[in-house]
Protein backbone atom coordinates (compact mmCIF):
# COMPACT_ATOMS: atom_id res chain seq x y z
CA UNK A 1 0.00 0.00 0.00
CA UNK A 2 1.84 3.06 -1.30
CA UNK A 3 0.36 6.22 -2.69
CA UNK A 4 1.86 6.94 -6.11
CA UNK A 5 -0.31 9.84 -7.20
CA UNK A 6 -2.19 12.30 -5.05
CA UNK A 7 -4.27 15.38 -5.71
CA UNK A 8 -5.51 17.82 -3.13
CA UNK A 9 -8.50 20.02 -3.73
CA UNK A 10 -7.77 20.26 -7.46
CA UNK A 11 -9.88 22.85 -9.21
CA UNK A 12 -10.06 24.16 -12.79
CA UNK A 13 -12.13 27.09 -13.83
CA UNK A 14 -12.84 28.02 -17.45
CA UNK A 15 -14.45 31.43 -17.13
CA UNK A 16 -17.76 30.79 -15.38
CA UNK A 17 -17.54 27.03 -15.74
CA UNK A 18 -15.89 24.93 -13.06
CA UNK A 19 -14.79 21.84 -14.97
CA UNK A 20 -12.99 20.21 -12.04
CA UNK A 21 -14.19 21.22 -8.62
CA UNK A 22 -12.08 20.33 -5.62
CA UNK A 23 -11.00 16.78 -6.45
CA UNK A 24 -8.81 15.05 -3.88
CA UNK A 25 -7.78 11.49 -4.63
CA UNK A 26 -5.01 9.12 -3.73
CA UNK A 27 -3.99 6.43 -6.18
CA UNK A 28 -2.56 3.28 -4.61
CA UNK A 29 0.04 1.21 -6.43
CA UNK A 30 -1.63 -2.10 -5.60
CA UNK A 31 -4.85 -1.34 -7.46
CA UNK A 32 -6.17 -0.55 -10.91
CA UNK A 33 -8.27 2.55 -10.39
CA UNK A 34 -11.01 3.51 -12.82
CA UNK A 35 -12.31 7.04 -13.09
CA UNK A 36 -15.79 7.03 -14.54
CA UNK A 37 -18.55 9.54 -15.02
CA UNK A 38 -21.04 10.76 -17.59
CA UNK A 39 -19.92 12.86 -20.54
CA UNK A 40 -18.73 16.27 -19.42
CA UNK A 41 -18.00 15.06 -15.89
CA UNK A 42 -14.48 16.47 -16.13
CA UNK A 43 -12.49 13.26 -16.65
CA UNK A 44 -10.36 14.48 -19.55
CA UNK A 45 -9.87 17.91 -17.95
CA UNK A 46 -8.72 16.08 -14.82
CA UNK A 47 -6.18 14.12 -16.90
CA UNK A 48 -5.03 17.30 -18.59
CA UNK A 49 -4.44 18.87 -15.18
CA UNK A 50 -2.47 15.85 -13.98
CA UNK A 51 -0.27 15.79 -17.07
CA UNK A 52 0.48 19.52 -17.11
CA UNK A 53 -1.42 20.29 -20.32
CA UNK A 54 -3.66 22.58 -18.27
CA UNK A 55 -2.63 24.54 -15.20
CA UNK A 56 -4.98 24.11 -12.23
CA UNK A 57 -6.74 27.18 -10.87
CA UNK A 58 -6.22 25.81 -7.39
CA UNK A 59 -4.95 22.75 -5.57
CA UNK A 60 -1.87 20.58 -5.82
CA UNK A 61 -0.63 17.34 -7.42
CA UNK A 62 2.06 14.97 -6.15
CA UNK A 63 3.70 12.06 -7.91
CA UNK A 64 5.95 9.34 -6.53
CA UNK A 65 9.47 9.79 -7.83
CA UNK A 66 10.99 6.60 -9.22
CA UNK A 67 9.35 3.19 -8.99
CA UNK A 68 9.25 1.35 -5.69
CA UNK A 69 8.84 3.64 -2.73
CA UNK A 70 10.26 7.02 -3.70
CA UNK A 71 9.03 10.18 -2.02
CA UNK A 72 6.11 12.12 -3.36
CA UNK A 73 7.20 15.20 -5.31
CA UNK A 74 4.96 18.06 -6.27
CA UNK A 75 4.26 18.39 -10.00
CA UNK A 76 1.47 20.97 -9.83
CA UNK A 77 3.07 23.58 -12.09
CA UNK A 78 5.24 21.27 -14.17
CA UNK A 79 5.09 21.33 -17.96
CA UNK A 80 3.90 18.23 -19.85
CA UNK A 81 7.40 16.99 -20.69
CA UNK A 82 8.51 17.47 -17.09
CA UNK A 83 5.51 15.50 -15.84
CA UNK A 84 6.36 12.71 -18.26
CA UNK A 85 10.00 12.71 -17.17
CA UNK A 86 8.84 12.55 -13.55
CA UNK A 87 7.13 9.26 -14.36
CA UNK A 88 3.53 10.02 -15.30
CA UNK A 89 2.54 8.73 -18.72
CA UNK A 90 -0.75 8.86 -20.58
CA UNK A 91 -2.62 7.50 -23.54
CA UNK A 92 -5.24 9.54 -25.35
CA UNK A 93 -8.94 9.09 -25.92
CA UNK A 94 -8.57 10.28 -29.51
CA UNK A 95 -5.64 8.25 -30.87
CA UNK A 96 -2.54 10.40 -30.78
CA UNK A 97 0.47 8.60 -32.20
CA UNK A 98 3.12 9.52 -34.78
CA UNK A 99 1.03 8.49 -37.79
CA UNK A 100 3.68 9.01 -40.45
CA UNK A 101 6.24 6.80 -38.71
CA UNK A 102 6.33 3.03 -38.41
CA UNK A 103 5.35 1.27 -35.20
CA UNK A 104 9.00 0.64 -34.40
CA UNK A 105 9.93 4.28 -35.04
CA UNK A 106 7.10 5.38 -32.75
CA UNK A 107 8.49 3.32 -29.91
CA UNK A 108 12.04 4.42 -30.76
CA UNK A 109 11.08 8.06 -30.25
CA UNK A 110 9.76 7.26 -26.78
CA UNK A 111 12.89 5.27 -25.90
CA UNK A 112 15.16 8.08 -27.15
CA UNK A 113 13.24 10.43 -24.91
CA UNK A 114 13.56 8.07 -21.96
CA UNK A 115 17.28 7.52 -22.53
CA UNK A 116 17.74 11.30 -22.87
CA UNK A 117 19.63 11.00 -26.16
CA UNK A 118 17.33 13.31 -28.14
CA UNK A 119 20.06 15.90 -28.71
CA UNK A 120 22.49 13.35 -30.13
CA UNK A 121 22.70 14.31 -33.81
CA UNK A 122 25.87 12.39 -34.63
CA UNK A 123 25.08 8.72 -34.13
CA UNK A 124 22.58 6.72 -36.12
CA UNK A 125 19.11 6.48 -34.62
CA UNK A 126 19.13 2.73 -35.24
CA UNK A 127 22.73 2.24 -34.16
CA UNK A 128 22.26 1.68 -30.43
CA UNK A 129 21.95 -2.08 -29.90
CA UNK A 130 20.64 -1.93 -26.35
CA UNK A 131 18.04 0.62 -27.42
CA UNK A 132 16.93 -1.64 -30.26
CA UNK A 133 16.73 -4.58 -27.86
CA UNK A 134 14.52 -2.53 -25.53
CA UNK A 135 12.26 -1.62 -28.45
CA UNK A 136 12.03 -5.26 -29.48
CA UNK A 137 11.12 -6.29 -25.96
CA UNK A 138 8.38 -3.71 -25.69
CA UNK A 139 6.95 -4.63 -29.11
CA UNK A 140 6.81 -8.22 -28.01
CA UNK A 141 5.16 -7.33 -24.71
CA UNK A 142 2.41 -5.41 -26.48
CA UNK A 143 2.06 -7.93 -29.31
CA UNK A 144 3.16 -5.51 -32.03
CA UNK A 145 6.16 -7.45 -33.34
CA UNK A 146 4.43 -8.59 -36.53
CA UNK A 147 3.47 -5.09 -37.60
CA UNK A 148 6.62 -3.40 -36.29
CA UNK A 149 7.68 -1.98 -39.65
CA UNK A 150 4.25 -0.91 -40.86
CA UNK A 151 3.59 2.81 -41.16
CA UNK A 152 1.04 3.72 -38.50
CA UNK A 153 -1.32 5.50 -40.89
CA UNK A 154 -2.10 2.16 -42.50
CA UNK A 155 -2.94 0.34 -39.25
CA UNK A 156 -6.43 -0.62 -38.07
CA UNK A 157 -8.04 1.35 -35.28
CA UNK A 158 -7.41 -1.39 -32.74
CA UNK A 159 -3.75 -1.64 -33.70
CA UNK A 160 -3.35 2.12 -33.38
CA UNK A 161 -4.84 1.95 -29.88
CA UNK A 162 -2.24 -0.67 -28.99
CA UNK A 163 0.57 1.52 -30.34
CA UNK A 164 -0.85 4.27 -28.14
CA UNK A 165 -0.34 2.01 -25.11
CA UNK A 166 3.12 0.88 -26.23
CA UNK A 167 4.21 4.51 -26.57
CA UNK A 168 3.03 5.42 -23.09
CA UNK A 169 4.77 2.38 -21.60
CA UNK A 170 8.03 2.95 -23.44
CA UNK A 171 9.02 5.75 -21.07
CA UNK A 172 8.73 3.33 -18.12
CA UNK A 173 6.18 5.31 -16.13
CA UNK A 174 5.29 4.98 -12.45
CA UNK A 175 1.71 5.81 -13.21
CA UNK A 176 -0.05 5.19 -16.49
CA UNK A 177 -3.21 7.21 -17.16
CA UNK A 178 -5.32 5.55 -19.85
CA UNK A 179 -7.99 7.73 -21.37
CA UNK A 180 -10.73 5.41 -22.70
CA UNK A 181 -8.51 2.62 -24.02
CA UNK A 182 -11.46 0.91 -25.73
CA UNK A 183 -12.88 4.02 -27.43
CA UNK A 184 -14.28 3.17 -30.85
CA UNK A 185 -13.26 -0.50 -30.71
CA UNK A 186 -15.27 -3.49 -31.86
CA UNK A 187 -16.07 -6.24 -29.29
CA UNK A 188 -13.16 -8.49 -30.34
CA UNK A 189 -10.70 -5.64 -30.06
CA UNK A 190 -12.14 -4.73 -26.65
CA UNK A 191 -11.55 -8.27 -25.36
CA UNK A 192 -7.99 -8.18 -26.68
CA UNK A 193 -7.13 -4.82 -25.19
CA UNK A 194 -8.62 -5.75 -21.80
CA UNK A 195 -6.53 -8.89 -21.58
CA UNK A 196 -3.50 -6.86 -22.66
CA UNK A 197 -4.11 -4.33 -19.88
CA UNK A 198 -4.42 -7.15 -17.34
CA UNK A 199 -1.19 -8.75 -18.54
CA UNK A 200 0.68 -5.46 -18.52
CA UNK A 201 -0.55 -4.64 -15.03
CA UNK A 202 0.86 -7.93 -13.80
CA UNK A 203 4.16 -7.72 -15.69
CA UNK A 204 5.04 -4.11 -15.07
CA UNK A 205 5.67 -1.89 -12.08
CA UNK A 206 3.46 0.86 -13.43
CA UNK A 207 0.21 1.68 -11.65
CA UNK A 208 -2.76 1.86 -14.00
CA UNK A 209 -5.47 4.49 -13.86
CA UNK A 210 -8.22 4.14 -16.43
CA UNK A 211 -11.15 6.25 -17.56
CA UNK A 212 -13.70 4.23 -19.43
CA UNK A 213 -17.24 4.41 -20.75
CA UNK A 214 -17.70 0.69 -21.26
CA UNK A 215 -19.10 -0.55 -17.92
CA UNK A 216 -18.25 -4.19 -18.62
CA UNK A 217 -14.62 -3.23 -19.01
CA UNK A 218 -14.74 -1.10 -15.86
CA UNK A 219 -16.13 -3.88 -13.68
CA UNK A 220 -13.79 -6.35 -15.29
CA UNK A 221 -10.48 -4.61 -14.64
CA UNK A 222 -10.96 -2.20 -11.73
CA UNK A 223 -10.08 -2.79 -8.11
CA UNK A 224 -11.38 0.62 -7.20
CA UNK A 225 -13.73 3.05 -8.91
CA UNK A 226 -13.93 6.82 -8.57
CA UNK A 227 -17.09 8.40 -9.96
CA UNK A 228 -16.87 11.97 -11.17
CA UNK A 229 -19.97 14.05 -11.81
CA UNK A 230 -20.00 17.75 -12.64
CA UNK A 231 -16.37 18.07 -11.70
CA UNK A 232 -16.47 16.55 -8.22
CA UNK A 233 -16.20 13.08 -6.76
CA UNK A 234 -19.63 11.57 -6.38
CA UNK A 235 -18.60 8.22 -5.00
CA UNK A 236 -15.60 5.94 -4.64
CA UNK A 237 -14.96 2.39 -3.56
CA UNK A 238 -14.89 -1.17 -4.87
CA UNK A 239 -16.87 -1.92 -8.05
CA UNK A 240 -19.49 -3.79 -6.02
CA UNK A 241 -20.13 -0.83 -3.74
CA UNK A 242 -20.03 1.91 -6.33
CA UNK A 243 -22.15 0.38 -9.05
CA UNK A 244 -25.01 -0.38 -6.67
CA UNK A 245 -24.90 3.15 -5.30
CA UNK A 246 -28.17 4.88 -6.16
CA UNK A 247 -26.58 8.30 -6.66
CA UNK A 248 -24.29 6.81 -9.31
CA UNK A 249 -27.03 5.20 -11.37
CA UNK A 250 -28.98 8.41 -11.10
CA UNK A 251 -26.08 10.52 -12.35
CA UNK A 252 -25.72 8.22 -15.32
CA UNK A 253 -29.37 7.82 -16.20
CA UNK A 254 -29.99 11.48 -15.56
CA UNK A 255 -27.59 12.77 -18.19
CA UNK A 256 -26.92 10.01 -20.68
CA UNK A 257 -27.90 6.39 -20.56
CA UNK A 258 -25.16 3.82 -20.84
Amino acid sequence: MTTVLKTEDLRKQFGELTAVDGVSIEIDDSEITSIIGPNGAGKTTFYNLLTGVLQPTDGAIWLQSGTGGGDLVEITDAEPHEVAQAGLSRSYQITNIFEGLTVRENVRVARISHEKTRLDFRSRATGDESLEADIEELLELTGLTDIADTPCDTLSHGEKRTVEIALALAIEPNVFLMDEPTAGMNPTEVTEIVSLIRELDEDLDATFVVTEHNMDVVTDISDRIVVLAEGSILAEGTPGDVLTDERVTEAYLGSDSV
Partner: protein
Amino acid sequence: MSATTDTGDRIREFGAAVTDGWTRERFGLLGALGLVLLAFGPSFQVYLFTDFLVVALFALGFNLLYGYTGLLSFGHGLFYAGGAYGIAIVLRDLGPVFADVVGSGISPLVTFVVGGVVGLALVVVVAVPVGWLSVRLEEIYFALITLAFGMLGYSLIIQDPAGLTNGTDGIIVLLGSVDVGGSSFRISARRTYYALTVVVVLAATYGVWRVVNSPFGTVCKAIRESPDRASALGIDVRHHRWMTFILSAAVVGIAGVLRAGLASVASPGLTHWSTSAIAVIATVIGGATYFSGPIVGAFVFLYIRWGISRFPTLEAYWELFFGALLIAVVLYFKQGTVGGLLLLRDRLLGDDDASADGDRRSGGGEASGSTDDTRPDGGDTS
Protein backbone atom coordinates in the same frame (compact mmCIF):
# COMPACT_ATOMS: atom_id res chain seq x y z
CA MET B 1 45.19 0.00 -35.78
CA SER B 2 41.58 -1.00 -35.85
CA ALA B 3 40.78 2.21 -37.70
CA THR B 4 42.93 1.22 -40.66
CA THR B 5 41.38 -2.22 -40.96
CA ASP B 6 37.97 -0.53 -40.75
CA THR B 7 38.83 1.69 -43.67
CA GLY B 8 40.19 -1.27 -45.61
CA ASP B 9 37.02 -3.24 -44.92
CA ARG B 10 34.89 -0.34 -46.01
CA ILE B 11 36.75 0.07 -49.28
CA ARG B 12 36.45 -3.66 -49.94
CA GLU B 13 32.74 -3.58 -49.08
CA PHE B 14 32.23 -0.60 -51.34
CA GLY B 15 34.03 -2.34 -54.19
CA ALA B 16 31.93 -5.45 -53.75
CA ALA B 17 28.74 -3.39 -53.73
CA VAL B 18 29.72 -1.62 -56.94
CA THR B 19 30.37 -4.83 -58.83
CA ASP B 20 27.24 -6.36 -57.36
CA GLY B 21 24.75 -4.63 -59.67
CA TRP B 22 22.74 -1.42 -59.65
CA THR B 23 23.31 -0.72 -56.00
CA ARG B 24 23.30 2.61 -54.23
CA GLU B 25 27.10 2.55 -54.39
CA ARG B 26 27.21 2.27 -58.15
CA PHE B 27 24.78 5.17 -58.53
CA GLY B 28 26.93 7.15 -56.10
CA LEU B 29 30.04 6.46 -58.16
CA LEU B 30 28.26 7.46 -61.37
CA GLY B 31 27.01 10.63 -59.72
CA ALA B 32 30.54 11.53 -58.63
CA LEU B 33 31.79 10.88 -62.17
CA GLY B 34 29.03 13.10 -63.53
CA LEU B 35 30.03 15.90 -61.20
CA VAL B 36 33.66 15.65 -62.35
CA LEU B 37 32.71 15.55 -66.04
CA LEU B 38 30.44 18.55 -65.64
CA ALA B 39 33.43 20.67 -64.67
CA PHE B 40 34.58 20.36 -68.30
CA GLY B 41 31.23 21.40 -69.75
CA PRO B 42 30.35 24.78 -71.26
CA SER B 43 31.15 27.62 -68.90
CA PHE B 44 27.56 28.78 -68.53
CA GLN B 45 26.35 25.27 -67.72
CA VAL B 46 28.98 25.03 -65.00
CA TYR B 47 27.68 28.31 -63.58
CA LEU B 48 24.05 27.17 -63.74
CA PHE B 49 24.85 23.90 -62.00
CA THR B 50 26.78 25.72 -59.27
CA ASP B 51 23.75 27.96 -58.83
CA PHE B 52 21.59 24.86 -58.50
CA LEU B 53 23.87 23.35 -55.84
CA VAL B 54 23.71 26.51 -53.74
CA VAL B 55 19.92 26.79 -53.96
CA ALA B 56 19.65 23.07 -53.21
CA LEU B 57 21.60 23.52 -49.98
CA PHE B 58 19.48 26.56 -49.12
CA ALA B 59 16.28 24.53 -49.55
CA LEU B 60 17.74 21.50 -47.79
CA GLY B 61 18.53 23.57 -44.70
CA PHE B 62 15.07 25.11 -44.81
CA ASN B 63 13.45 21.69 -45.07
CA LEU B 64 15.12 20.50 -41.87
CA LEU B 65 12.67 22.83 -40.16
CA TYR B 66 9.72 22.46 -42.54
CA GLY B 67 9.51 18.89 -43.79
CA TYR B 68 11.22 17.30 -40.80
CA THR B 69 9.99 19.33 -37.86
CA GLY B 70 6.77 20.77 -39.25
CA LEU B 71 7.56 24.48 -38.95
CA LEU B 72 7.12 26.63 -42.07
CA SER B 73 9.61 29.50 -41.96
CA PHE B 74 9.14 32.41 -44.32
CA GLY B 75 12.26 34.18 -43.15
CA HIS B 76 15.17 31.89 -43.95
CA GLY B 77 16.43 34.52 -46.36
CA LEU B 78 17.71 36.25 -43.24
CA PHE B 79 20.23 33.45 -42.68
CA TYR B 80 21.03 33.20 -46.38
CA ALA B 81 21.92 36.90 -46.25
CA GLY B 82 23.72 36.45 -42.92
CA GLY B 83 26.19 34.02 -44.46
CA ALA B 84 26.68 36.22 -47.51
CA TYR B 85 27.21 39.43 -45.54
CA GLY B 86 29.47 37.69 -43.06
CA ILE B 87 31.96 36.67 -45.72
CA ALA B 88 31.54 39.91 -47.67
CA ILE B 89 32.43 42.07 -44.66
CA VAL B 90 35.45 39.93 -43.81
CA LEU B 91 36.70 40.11 -47.40
CA ARG B 92 36.24 43.85 -47.57
CA ASP B 93 37.57 44.85 -44.16
CA LEU B 94 40.02 42.12 -43.24
CA GLY B 95 41.32 41.01 -46.64
CA PRO B 96 44.27 43.45 -46.58
CA VAL B 97 45.04 42.50 -42.96
CA PHE B 98 45.27 38.82 -43.85
CA ALA B 99 47.46 39.66 -46.83
CA ASP B 100 49.95 41.24 -44.41
CA VAL B 101 49.86 38.33 -42.01
CA VAL B 102 50.02 35.26 -44.25
CA GLY B 103 51.45 36.80 -47.40
CA SER B 104 49.49 37.88 -50.46
CA GLY B 105 49.96 34.57 -52.29
CA ILE B 106 47.75 32.42 -50.10
CA SER B 107 45.75 35.17 -48.40
CA PRO B 108 42.65 35.07 -50.68
CA LEU B 109 42.12 31.44 -49.76
CA VAL B 110 42.67 32.08 -46.05
CA THR B 111 40.33 35.07 -46.18
CA PHE B 112 37.70 32.99 -47.94
CA VAL B 113 37.85 30.24 -45.32
CA VAL B 114 37.86 32.69 -42.41
CA GLY B 115 35.05 34.65 -44.05
CA GLY B 116 33.00 31.48 -44.43
CA VAL B 117 33.50 30.59 -40.78
CA VAL B 118 32.60 34.15 -39.72
CA GLY B 119 29.49 34.06 -41.94
CA LEU B 120 28.43 30.80 -40.35
CA ALA B 121 29.11 32.12 -36.85
CA LEU B 122 27.16 35.30 -37.58
CA VAL B 123 24.18 33.25 -38.71
CA VAL B 124 24.24 31.15 -35.55
CA VAL B 125 24.49 34.28 -33.38
CA VAL B 126 21.42 35.70 -35.14
CA ALA B 127 19.52 32.39 -35.16
CA VAL B 128 19.83 31.81 -31.41
CA PRO B 129 17.61 34.73 -30.30
CA VAL B 130 15.43 34.77 -33.44
CA GLY B 131 14.77 31.06 -33.07
CA TRP B 132 14.18 31.32 -29.33
CA LEU B 133 11.41 33.86 -29.93
CA SER B 134 9.97 32.21 -33.04
CA VAL B 135 9.49 28.70 -31.63
CA ARG B 136 7.14 30.15 -29.05
CA LEU B 137 4.62 30.23 -31.88
CA GLU B 138 3.24 27.55 -34.16
CA GLU B 139 1.82 27.12 -37.65
CA ILE B 140 0.74 30.36 -39.38
CA TYR B 141 1.99 32.49 -36.49
CA PHE B 142 5.41 30.92 -36.80
CA ALA B 143 5.41 31.66 -40.54
CA LEU B 144 4.45 35.27 -39.86
CA ILE B 145 7.01 35.94 -37.14
CA THR B 146 9.82 34.49 -39.27
CA LEU B 147 8.59 36.60 -42.18
CA ALA B 148 8.72 39.63 -39.90
CA PHE B 149 12.28 38.83 -38.76
CA GLY B 150 13.35 38.40 -42.37
CA MET B 151 11.94 41.77 -43.36
CA LEU B 152 13.40 43.36 -40.23
CA GLY B 153 16.79 42.13 -41.41
CA TYR B 154 16.02 43.52 -44.87
CA SER B 155 15.33 47.01 -43.58
CA LEU B 156 18.31 46.93 -41.20
CA ILE B 157 20.62 46.03 -44.09
CA ILE B 158 19.18 48.80 -46.25
CA GLN B 159 19.19 51.44 -43.50
CA ASP B 160 22.66 50.36 -42.49
CA PRO B 161 22.77 52.04 -39.05
CA ALA B 162 26.22 50.64 -38.22
CA GLY B 163 27.79 51.50 -41.57
CA LEU B 164 28.60 47.87 -42.32
CA THR B 165 26.28 46.73 -45.10
CA ASN B 166 26.53 49.54 -47.68
CA GLY B 167 22.77 49.99 -48.00
CA THR B 168 20.84 49.06 -51.13
CA ASP B 169 24.00 48.53 -53.21
CA GLY B 170 25.23 45.68 -51.08
CA ILE B 171 28.89 44.66 -50.78
CA ILE B 172 31.00 43.60 -53.72
CA VAL B 173 32.64 40.23 -53.09
CA LEU B 174 36.06 39.86 -54.70
CA LEU B 175 37.61 36.50 -54.00
CA GLY B 176 40.98 37.23 -55.61
CA SER B 177 43.71 34.97 -56.98
CA VAL B 178 45.83 32.49 -55.12
CA ASP B 179 49.53 32.34 -56.01
CA VAL B 180 51.32 29.29 -54.73
CA GLY B 181 54.65 28.06 -56.01
CA GLY B 182 54.49 29.98 -59.26
CA SER B 183 51.05 28.73 -60.30
CA SER B 184 48.05 30.96 -59.77
CA PHE B 185 44.30 30.50 -59.95
CA ARG B 186 41.24 32.65 -59.37
CA ILE B 187 38.90 31.29 -56.68
CA SER B 188 35.96 32.87 -58.43
CA ALA B 189 36.81 31.26 -61.80
CA ARG B 190 33.75 29.27 -62.73
CA ARG B 191 35.31 25.83 -62.71
CA THR B 192 37.32 26.46 -59.55
CA TYR B 193 34.30 27.82 -57.75
CA TYR B 194 32.24 24.91 -59.03
CA ALA B 195 34.69 22.39 -57.55
CA LEU B 196 34.71 24.26 -54.25
CA THR B 197 30.91 24.39 -54.18
CA VAL B 198 30.59 20.68 -54.96
CA VAL B 199 32.85 19.78 -52.03
CA VAL B 200 31.11 22.09 -49.55
CA VAL B 201 27.58 21.21 -50.64
CA LEU B 202 28.26 17.46 -50.63
CA ALA B 203 29.80 17.67 -47.16
CA ALA B 204 26.91 19.77 -45.82
CA THR B 205 24.34 17.48 -47.44
CA TYR B 206 25.99 14.47 -45.84
CA GLY B 207 25.88 16.30 -42.52
CA VAL B 208 22.16 17.02 -42.88
CA TRP B 209 21.57 13.40 -43.88
CA ARG B 210 23.34 12.25 -40.73
CA VAL B 211 21.27 14.62 -38.63
CA VAL B 212 17.91 13.50 -39.99
CA ASN B 213 18.87 9.86 -39.40
CA SER B 214 20.14 10.48 -35.88
CA PRO B 215 18.17 10.29 -32.62
CA PHE B 216 17.84 14.09 -32.92
CA GLY B 217 16.25 13.81 -36.36
CA THR B 218 13.95 10.99 -35.25
CA VAL B 219 12.60 13.24 -32.53
CA CYS B 220 12.13 16.04 -35.11
CA LYS B 221 9.90 13.77 -37.19
CA ALA B 222 7.88 12.84 -34.11
CA ILE B 223 7.35 16.52 -33.31
CA ARG B 224 6.18 17.09 -36.88
CA GLU B 225 3.64 14.30 -36.52
CA SER B 226 2.27 15.31 -33.12
CA PRO B 227 3.92 17.89 -30.87
CA ASP B 228 1.65 17.25 -27.90
CA ARG B 229 2.25 13.50 -28.09
CA ALA B 230 5.98 14.15 -28.14
CA SER B 231 5.81 16.32 -25.04
CA ALA B 232 3.67 13.70 -23.28
CA LEU B 233 6.62 11.34 -23.82
CA GLY B 234 8.97 13.71 -22.01
CA ILE B 235 10.34 15.63 -24.99
CA ASP B 236 10.84 19.36 -24.50
CA VAL B 237 9.25 20.26 -27.82
CA ARG B 238 10.04 23.98 -27.71
CA HIS B 239 13.70 23.38 -26.93
CA HIS B 240 14.00 20.76 -29.65
CA ARG B 241 12.41 23.09 -32.20
CA TRP B 242 14.81 25.81 -31.14
CA MET B 243 17.83 23.55 -31.66
CA THR B 244 16.48 22.50 -35.07
CA PHE B 245 15.93 26.14 -35.97
CA ILE B 246 19.58 26.96 -35.22
CA LEU B 247 20.84 23.93 -37.13
CA SER B 248 18.61 24.73 -40.08
CA ALA B 249 19.78 28.36 -40.09
CA ALA B 250 23.42 27.23 -40.00
CA VAL B 251 22.98 25.07 -43.11
CA VAL B 252 21.27 27.95 -44.89
CA GLY B 253 24.14 30.19 -43.74
CA ILE B 254 26.66 27.94 -45.51
CA ALA B 255 24.58 28.25 -48.67
CA GLY B 256 24.62 32.05 -48.17
CA VAL B 257 28.42 32.10 -47.99
CA LEU B 258 28.59 30.19 -51.28
CA ARG B 259 25.96 32.49 -52.81
CA ALA B 260 28.05 35.60 -52.07
CA GLY B 261 31.06 34.16 -53.87
CA LEU B 262 29.00 32.97 -56.83
CA ALA B 263 27.12 36.24 -57.32
CA SER B 264 30.21 38.33 -56.43
CA VAL B 265 27.95 40.46 -54.26
CA ALA B 266 26.08 40.33 -50.96
CA SER B 267 22.88 42.20 -51.65
CA PRO B 268 19.92 43.09 -49.40
CA GLY B 269 17.57 41.16 -51.69
CA LEU B 270 18.88 37.94 -50.15
CA THR B 271 16.88 38.56 -47.00
CA HIS B 272 13.76 39.75 -48.81
CA TRP B 273 10.75 37.46 -48.40
CA SER B 274 10.84 36.66 -52.11
CA THR B 275 14.22 34.98 -51.57
CA SER B 276 12.88 33.04 -48.58
CA ALA B 277 10.06 31.94 -50.87
CA ILE B 278 12.55 30.26 -53.23
CA ALA B 279 13.36 27.71 -50.52
CA VAL B 280 9.66 27.16 -49.89
CA ILE B 281 8.83 26.77 -53.59
CA ALA B 282 11.78 24.47 -54.35
CA THR B 283 10.86 22.27 -51.38
CA VAL B 284 7.19 22.06 -52.29
CA ILE B 285 7.95 21.31 -55.95
CA GLY B 286 10.45 18.61 -54.96
CA GLY B 287 8.48 17.08 -52.09
CA ALA B 288 8.98 18.11 -48.48
CA THR B 289 8.55 14.60 -47.13
CA TYR B 290 11.67 13.30 -48.86
CA PHE B 291 15.28 14.00 -48.01
CA SER B 292 16.04 14.57 -51.69
CA GLY B 293 12.89 16.66 -52.22
CA PRO B 294 14.46 20.11 -51.84
CA ILE B 295 17.42 19.11 -54.01
CA VAL B 296 15.24 17.84 -56.84
CA GLY B 297 12.96 20.85 -56.39
CA ALA B 298 15.88 23.26 -56.69
CA PHE B 299 16.95 21.46 -59.86
CA VAL B 300 13.49 21.70 -61.41
CA PHE B 301 13.14 25.33 -60.34
CA LEU B 302 16.44 26.54 -61.78
CA TYR B 303 16.44 24.50 -64.96
CA ILE B 304 12.85 25.35 -65.86
CA ARG B 305 13.68 29.00 -65.29
CA TRP B 306 16.72 28.62 -67.51
CA GLY B 307 14.62 26.83 -70.15
CA ILE B 308 12.11 29.66 -70.13
CA SER B 309 14.85 32.27 -70.36
CA ARG B 310 15.89 30.77 -73.71
CA PHE B 311 12.67 32.19 -75.16
CA PRO B 312 12.78 35.96 -74.73
CA THR B 313 9.06 36.36 -75.40
CA LEU B 314 8.26 33.98 -72.56
CA GLU B 315 10.86 35.24 -70.16
CA ALA B 316 8.84 38.23 -69.09
CA TYR B 317 6.22 35.78 -67.84
CA TRP B 318 8.40 33.18 -66.17
CA GLU B 319 6.76 33.77 -62.81
CA LEU B 320 3.44 32.91 -64.43
CA PHE B 321 4.84 29.52 -65.42
CA PHE B 322 5.95 28.92 -61.89
CA GLY B 323 2.57 29.89 -60.54
CA ALA B 324 0.95 27.33 -62.83
CA LEU B 325 3.51 24.66 -61.96
CA LEU B 326 3.04 25.26 -58.24
CA ILE B 327 -0.73 25.01 -58.53
CA ALA B 328 -0.39 21.72 -60.42
CA VAL B 329 1.99 20.30 -57.80
CA VAL B 330 -0.11 21.39 -54.83
CA LEU B 331 -3.32 20.08 -56.38
CA TYR B 332 -2.18 16.83 -57.97
CA PHE B 333 1.25 15.89 -56.60
CA LYS B 334 1.20 16.54 -52.89
CA GLN B 335 4.37 14.48 -52.59
CA GLY B 336 6.12 16.69 -55.13
CA THR B 337 8.40 15.65 -57.98
CA VAL B 338 10.16 12.98 -55.95
CA GLY B 339 6.82 11.49 -54.89
CA GLY B 340 5.67 11.57 -58.52
CA LEU B 341 8.85 9.88 -59.73
CA LEU B 342 8.63 7.15 -57.09
CA LEU B 343 5.01 6.59 -58.04
CA LEU B 344 6.03 6.31 -61.67
CA ARG B 345 8.80 3.87 -60.78
CA ASP B 346 6.39 1.75 -58.74
CA ARG B 347 3.97 1.70 -61.66
CA LEU B 348 6.69 0.64 -64.08
CA LEU B 349 8.40 -1.93 -61.88
CA GLY B 350 5.38 -3.21 -60.02
CA ASP B 351 4.55 -2.15 -56.51
CA ASP B 352 6.75 -4.54 -54.53
CA ASP B 353 9.81 -2.65 -53.45
CA ALA B 354 7.91 0.53 -52.75
CA SER B 355 8.77 0.51 -49.06
CA ALA B 356 12.32 -0.68 -49.55
CA ASP B 357 13.54 2.76 -50.57
CA GLY B 358 15.68 4.25 -47.84
CA ASP B 359 14.85 7.77 -48.92
CA ARG B 360 11.17 7.39 -48.17
CA ARG B 361 10.07 8.63 -44.86
CA SER B 362 6.40 7.98 -44.78
CA GLY B 363 3.75 5.72 -46.12
CA GLY B 364 2.33 8.41 -48.35
CA GLY B 365 1.98 8.23 -52.10
CA GLU B 366 0.54 4.74 -52.34
CA ALA B 367 -1.20 3.71 -55.50
CA SER B 368 -3.34 6.80 -55.99
CA GLY B 369 -2.55 10.39 -55.15
CA SER B 370 -5.94 10.72 -53.53
CA THR B 371 -4.91 9.44 -50.12
CA ASP B 372 -4.59 12.59 -48.14
CA ASP B 373 -1.07 13.25 -46.97
CA THR B 374 -0.39 16.75 -45.86
CA ARG B 375 2.33 15.42 -43.63
CA PRO B 376 4.51 18.42 -42.82
CA ASP B 377 1.66 20.39 -41.33
CA GLY B 378 1.47 17.76 -38.64
CA GLY B 379 -1.21 15.23 -37.88
CA ASP B 380 -2.26 17.06 -34.77
CA THR B 381 -5.83 16.15 -34.04
CA SER B 382 -6.72 18.46 -31.22
